């Protein structure tokens, strides 16, 4: 219908021109508004560039942090292995305390120089482990009379206990019991088994 009007007269032509102009202006206006949108878009690109910088900084920081973390981790590992060594050392000390017996001569509850040396080590350990309470067991070899050996075993345990008291260990941390010949370490019937069985043995409560 607009084409017929344009074809209809000059006035109509003028109207069409105005219309076209108006359309062009409006198009311009549209274009301008579009350009404005473009500008907004441009400013957001700038913001991204800014983020990139921050990221770089963050990455640097992160790297630094990771390095620090790795350093700490290494340190912790080192420390852990150190405390593991300490623990192992502690366990070994406990094991030695429990497994190293004080030996006696046949029919004797007297402490030999060797027995005293071992008891000194035990006193050191007891000093370092002040919360520990112990039982000192007195044992005999199978030779001799059972009842007599019960008494002899008690004297062995008591001799060990007395020496530890002399070395400063509180009596309240120690109790004694005799097993006589009832609990040999080595059931063999020979001199070395008998020697092994004549002992004060230490049990941690």
């Amino acid at each position, binding site marked *: 219908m607009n084409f017929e009007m344009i074809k209809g007269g000059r006035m109509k032509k003028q109207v069409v021109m105005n219309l076209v102009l108006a359309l062009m202006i409006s198009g311009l206006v549209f274009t301008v508004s579009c350009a404005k949108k473009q500008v907004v878009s441009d400013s957001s690109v700038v913001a991204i560039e800014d983020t990139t910088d921050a990221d770089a900084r963050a990455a640097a920081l992160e790297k630094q942090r990771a390095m620090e973390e790795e350093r700490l981790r290494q340190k912790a590992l080192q420390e852990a292995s150190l405390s593991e060594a300490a623990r192992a050392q502690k366990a070994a000390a406990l094991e030695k305390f429990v497994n190293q017996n004080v030996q006696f001569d046949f029919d004797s509850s007297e402490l030999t120089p060797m027995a005293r040396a071992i008891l000194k080590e035990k006193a050191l350990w007891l000093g370092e482990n002040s919360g520990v309470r112990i039982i000192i067991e007195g044992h005999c070899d199978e030779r001799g009379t059972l009842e*007599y050996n019960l008494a*002899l075993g008690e004297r062995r345990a008591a001799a060990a206990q007395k020496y530890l008291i002399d070395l400063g260990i509180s009596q309240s941390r120690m109790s004694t019991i*005799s097993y006589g010949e009832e609990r040999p370490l080595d059931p063999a019937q020979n001199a070395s088994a008998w020697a092994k069985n004549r002992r004060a043995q230490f049990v941690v409560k």
Partner: protein
Amino acid sequence: MIKKETMQGRALLILFLVFGTVVLGQAHTVLAQHVYININEPFLRKVPVAVPGFKSLTGGANEDSLGKEARTILVNALDFTGYIAVLNPASYIENLAEKGITQADINFKNWTVIGTELLVTCGVEESDGDIQLKLRLFDPFTERLVVGKVYTGRIADLRRMVHRFCGEISFHLTGKWGVFSSSLAFVSTVDKNKEIFVSEFDGYNPRKVTHHNSISLSPAWSSDGKWLAYTSYAGGNPDIYIKNLYENRGHLVSFKGLNISPAWVPGSFSLAATLSFENDQEIYLLTGTGKIIKRLTSSWGIDVSPSFSPDGKKMAFVSKRAGTPQIYIQDLERGTAARLTFTGGYNTSPAWSPEGDKIAYVGITNGEINIYIIGIDGTGLVQLTSKAGDNEDPSWSPDASLITFSSTREGGAAIFVMTATGGDQRRLFSMKGAQTSPVWSFGNENN
């Protein structure tokens, strides 16, 4: 219930006694008029005794097999004494199982000619599990009935009936009733624990009497055989348990430290034991309920293993007061102690003979552990075992004719027996584990 009749010639004396502990009545018209043998004689000649086959009195098939069983029990028991040798039946001339078992049936010349010094006959009657044993002991030289008894009971009482008559034979020969009515207590390993067992005198029918699943040691009989004192770790500490074997009751001695090596005072409900609650191993006298009466020893060092004289007035024990373990005798009235053993550097485990004159003990010399006896005056030291393992824990039979002990001569520790002079050393029985600390009860001496 057992009925026992005493036959002296034609005189019949009927007695009743309960098999168990209560004797309702009894009599012995035959007294030991003469002791034939001295069981302390070192080179004792064994008395030859003939034991012909036992006679079935009513002809039942059971009577034959019961008679064979009863004869085996009797022969083994007589062999056990160490002073009787049962003659080989192959040498017997008369068959009394067919001919008859009374004085009138026997031609004694047929027995003296083969060397019989004593002749035992027996008739067996059985009906519905009730049995009657008619046992007689003859002296074929005087052609005299020494003792005759009729035992009535159930088949399960067979051993006991035969052993009662063995006591009569012992009484005739030695003036003592022998070991047959004694019980034997001992320690045996059970898995990793030690428990106390009680058997008949010869190890027959052992029964576990402790159930602590712990270390239980050192059984000791009271004179009446009703109480057993022993040491056990059941409560974690070596404590003394005083157990009534017939009633479910007992007492505990549980002081701080050791409570060990109990020994009853003869004829008394009191016992001695080593305690260490005063920080030294000393021997104390206790009531049968475990209360301290008083301390008996007071010397620094080990005092252990009390053993009383039969009259209870003296006590042998082990002390280390002179530097090595030695046996001492303490006069309990005066409180003085004198050293008994001077030979060797380790003498322990004294056992005072029921006769009162000797002490058996353990000595270690040159690495050998052996049993010795010594007179209470220190003379007459004799070594009874030699070069046969470790020998320990000597204990006397109530008639002092036998010593039981533990030995490792056949490997693990086991219970052995020998005569009081070291003769006839033999193992009593085989049992799983290791057995130690045998001790006979006093038995029913009046049979």
